[in-house]
């Protein structure tokens, strides 16, 4: 199996966010919100770090 780096990030963020949302909040609505928040942080943080490394190299 071969996946792109970005696909790996999306899959990792999706599954980790689901577990974080369920385990770190008590109410279903808050679980969904926290899971979405974690997903955005995972993906956004990775994109930000990628651009940072790009500008360090160039």
């Amino acid at each position: 199996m071969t996946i792109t780096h970005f696909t790996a990030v999306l899959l990792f963020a999706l599954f980790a966010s689901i577990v974080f949302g369920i385990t770190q909040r008590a109410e279903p609505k808050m679980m969904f919100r926290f899971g979405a928040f974690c997903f955005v942080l995972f993906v956004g943080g990775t994109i930000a770090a990628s651009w940072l490394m790009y500008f360090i190299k160039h």
Partner: protein
Amino acid sequence: MATSATAKAQPARATQSSSIPTLCLIAGWLVPGAGHFILRKPIRGALLFLSIVAMFTIGIALEGKIYQPNTGDLLDILGFVGQLGAGLLYACARLFDWGHPTVLVAVADYGTKFIVVAGLLNIVAAVDAHSLANGRKAS
């Protein structure tokens, strides 16, 4: 006032003394989401099961490394502890010789991380089931 406080504390103590929290912890460790199924939270259990098993499976499919105990390398020991958190999934991986003993391609390193994180997330899920069972976390 004191009577009502005592009355509230008694069910909590009775819950803590039962073996259900320990059962949820061990079942949740062995099978992802099983602790939540025992507590009759099937949707949470199913989502946890799907997420953790999918992460573990993707890690195996990416030819991730399955760590062995007693290699003497500290990082290998940490990786082993993380992967051991997956419970029966790790046992199956060792039994059926899934994964690879060494990382051969760049993406396989991602696979190794997927497997380790699946184990760590499973520990988080099992502890969550334990907390729900003993009343520490509101359901």
